[in-house]
């Protein structure tokens, strides 16, 4: 039984805890043990330490990584930014002996030491490579055939591919999320701006109008080219941008539609039969109708609740 340390980051536990709950429901049911990383903090976000000092970035990331090292588990995170920041920090520490020495001098101040024994994975990597599509298919209570999904992998899960353990064949034509969605029975057609940036992140804090313009270009591409039933992402920042900003554009009269948005494990959890009040409860863009459609009697392929190979990580 494989065990992973769940690195939460900031947005998921504080802005979208239903995504966190979806991790805690689906992974044990798929045979992956999830353990907390107590006291883990911010990765740190690109606009903080990485923008001030490389060694400080590596030390703050290194501190988070040492929490997993102490528990002897690899890290998995559902936030693309955290995945990118932690992976790159680990790369910078390991690629340069003098950097590693400097980082460990800093970490020595708090009685920690970076060893490099914990690898870093994105939750979608764990689902795709470790769990596998077949096991996901076997776990489903509802079949999503006929639903059309626009996939949004996000940026930091794809680039720079030289520091990541799990790679796409072509990072500019990513297929892993498409395959994960198709495993649920839904279709995930290509659209021309599939790998494009959603505009969240530093850009949104620096200039919200430029961010929204980039977002709108992508959203219109999705709507005009494939007109999906929902948008599915494995990036919590993309989730927030798609969920929040459609309303903004609609209120301004710039779009006349709204497309429901899910984090992938939310869609998976719904298809596995978990309660939407736990795993898909918080959104700005309405999604009640599609949730009812997903968990409709007509789609039921199995009566029983998902097989719990392990106890849920939090049962309170």
């Amino acid at each position: 039984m494989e065990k992973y340390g769940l690195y939460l980051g900031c947005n998921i536990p504080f802005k979208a805890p239903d995504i966190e709950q979806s991790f805690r429901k689906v992974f044990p049911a798929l045979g992956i043990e999830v353990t907390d990383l107590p006291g883990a903090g911010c990765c740190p976000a690109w606009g903080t330490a990485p923008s001030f000092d490389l060694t400080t970035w590596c030390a703050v990331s290194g501190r988070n990584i040492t929490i997993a090292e102490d528990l002897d588990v690899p890290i998995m995170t559902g936030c693309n930014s955290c995945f990118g920041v932690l992976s790159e920090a680990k790369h910078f520490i390991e690629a340069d002996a003098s950097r590693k020495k400097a980082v460990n001098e800093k970490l020595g101040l708090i009685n920690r030491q970076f060893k490099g024994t914990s690898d870093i994975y994105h939750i979608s990597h764990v689902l795709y490579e470790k769990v596998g599509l077949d096991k996901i298919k076997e776990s489903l209570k509802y079949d999503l055939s006929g639903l059309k999904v626009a996939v949004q992998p996000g940026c930091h899960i794809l680039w720079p591919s030289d520091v990541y353990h799990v790679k796409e064949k072509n990072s500019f034509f990513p297929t892993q999320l498409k395959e994960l969605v198709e495993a649920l029975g839904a279709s995930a057609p290509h659209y021309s701006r599939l790998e494009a940036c959603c505009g969240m992140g530093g850009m949104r804090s620096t200039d919200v109008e430029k961010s929204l313009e980039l977002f709108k270009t992508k959203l219109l591409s999705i709507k005009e080219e494939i007109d999906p039933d929902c948008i599915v992402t494995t990036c919590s920042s993309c989730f927030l941008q798609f969920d929040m900003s459609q309303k903004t554009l609609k209120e301004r009269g710039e779009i006349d539609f709204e497309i429901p948005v899910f984090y992938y494990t939310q869609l998976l959890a719904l298809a596995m039969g978990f309660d939407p009040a736990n795993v898909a409860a918080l959104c700005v863009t309405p999604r009640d109708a599609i949730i009812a459609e997903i968990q409709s009697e007509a789609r039921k392929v199995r009566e029983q609740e998902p097989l719990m190979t392990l106890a849920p990580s939090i049962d309170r």
Partner: protein
Amino acid sequence: MPAIVLDSDKIQDSVKRIMEYGGTGVLKCVQCGACSAVCPGVKAGFPVLCRLLIKKLLEGQFEELVEETSTWGCQACNRCTEVCPQGVRPQEVVFAYRRYQASELAFSSSATTSQMNLYGTGHAVFTEAGPLREKVGLPAKAPTSAYDEKAQKEIQTLLDNSPMGELGLF
């Protein structure tokens, strides 16, 4: 009259400083522009990123650019790193320049909040989410530094003993 005067001392100083801040690949750049062609920041209207930023730095315009806001439009997506045929890692040059700007406190006041949050709670983004978390069946307090004084002290120690600590932000 030329728009800029090239000065070899200034160029050498610019290259040295950008490398010290982490942009170690800057001299490999051949100005092909592959990076800017895939950059969402450039696409969105932040022109002085990737190729153009590197060009200006290689012309010795180090201190002149300190107020340039384009660098803060970088999404840190690393598309540039992926496509660069020379191994420059352009994003590292952008971040290296940001580090110089940050050392001169040349960043937007909105970015200060994230630094304060990071120092106070260990999270750049933090809101009290107890009711939201309980609504979805999770404990009100996430198992992170936000509710862990020892963890916060550790993070504060790392930040206090860094160039960030010398800026008087905390």
